[in-house]
């Protein structure tokens, strides 16, 4: 069976899997952003804590994704089989690029601008919200963009712990030794990644100040 024949005959199934995939990615990214960006904001003025947080996030990133899914299964509350575990694993993966870029975006501003802000009598909070955040937004968004592309890829492995998504075709295809079935998962996943990358890249350029 050729790739196109498989696509044509399994249209609905592929579309459904894409929907599940998108759901996993969106959930994971939303949670990762809600954790990563505020955490990065908190770390701006806490240098020692910053090293620890970035270190932990880096270590999480080095765990092979399949292993991370596996480690999570036996955990109480967080673990088990299915969507919740998958989303948690994806969040842990997405955290590093978001956190790192948030910290970098908020701290690597023109020192003259920060000095002026301080000298004008702005409070730390005012400097954070009115100067650091708007000026660091494009860097933060670049991190979100990287994280999104990674998450779309890693989410294919979520099928291994029963969370579904486009990965289910890939695993099935590997088991059946069928390129067509593998591609039915891989091509939509790649297209999703490209589309997300392009869309977020566009927003990122719009937000760039200087």
């Amino acid at each position: 069976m050729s790739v196109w024949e498989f696509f044509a005959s399994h249209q609905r199934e592929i579309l459904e899997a894409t929907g599940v995939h998108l759901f996993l990615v969106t959930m994971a990214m939303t949670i990762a952003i809600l954790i990563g960006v505020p955490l990065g904001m908190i770390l701006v003025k806490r240098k020692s804590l910053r090293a620890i947080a970035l270190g932990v996030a880096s270590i999480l990133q080095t765990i092979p994704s399949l292993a991370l899914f596996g480690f999570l299964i036996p955990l109480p509350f967080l673990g088990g089989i299915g969507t919740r575990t998958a989303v948690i694993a994806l969040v842990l993966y997405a955290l590093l690029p978001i956190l790192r870029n948030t910290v970098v975006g908020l701290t690597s501003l023109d020192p003259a601008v920060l000095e002026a802000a301080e000298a004008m009598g702005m409070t730390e909070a005012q400097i954070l919200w009115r100067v650091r955040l708007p000026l660091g937004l494009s860097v933060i968004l670049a991190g979100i963009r990287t994280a999104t592309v990674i998450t779309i890829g890693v989410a294919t492995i979520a099928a291994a712990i029963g969370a579904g998504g486009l990965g289910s075709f890939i695993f099935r295809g590997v088991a059946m030794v069928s390129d067509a079935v593998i591609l039915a998962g891989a091509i939509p996943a790649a297209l999703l990644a490209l589309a997300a990358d392009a869309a977020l890249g566009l927003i990122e350029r719009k937000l760039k100040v200087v």
Partner: protein
Amino acid sequence: MFTPWPRGVNREMNAKPEILGNITIEFRDVEYHVHGTSRDAILSHIRLKILRGETVVLLGRSGSGKTTLLKLINGLLRATSGSVYVNGRPVDESDPIQLRRGIGYVIQEGGLFPHYSVTENVALVPRLQGWEDSRIVARVEELMKLVGLDPYEYAQRKPRELSGGQRQRVGVARALAADPPILLMDEPFGALDPVTRAELQREFAELARRLAKTIVFVTHDLREALRLGTRIILLCEGKIVADAKPEEFLQVEHPEVQAFASSFEVGEAQP
């Protein structure tokens, strides 16, 4: 010692004739060390009284401590020992936010917020102070005219759409926005081409005379110091080595003064 500004400019001076009331900024035996060891002293034994309405120029080479001295005034840096007083209150005991809102600050290239328009940059401190919108609008227009920028043409521009000289003008307008009695300027005209610099110096000298503010101005340019200052303080390796009126400054017998004077003669013709 007592007439560094033109007569009649400072009305409050006549109301409060006692000398103490006229000391705006005072350094009492201030030391500043980088790592708390005296080997790394940036400033040592600084004793200095700056009177209301003076334009004091802090002159010195790179690394002489002049910028450090300036930043001790608005609490961007804290003295290692000794105290700095602003309006009779020790900086260490003042709320830094309130202190800084009463002190204008201008730096090289303006340090403007790149994501704010000219108007938003100038309106920053009044907005922080919670002024009403109508008052802010009027104030911004007034200030832009004061620093020689047409409000209709420049109000909505972003800093990157301005020339260096225009950015510097906006920087001055922003520092003056809430009408602070003290203005600190750290080589504000340092990054400008010579023609624009001379133009801004001339306008600023005029502005300083009219506004009757206490101004502390950092520069390494003797010509600028002579043009703008009502008093010139020369720093050398963290110490005050000369403190004189501009017309007397070149006669001070200190090797560092003479070093500046000779570089002046060799490098540039008299203004």
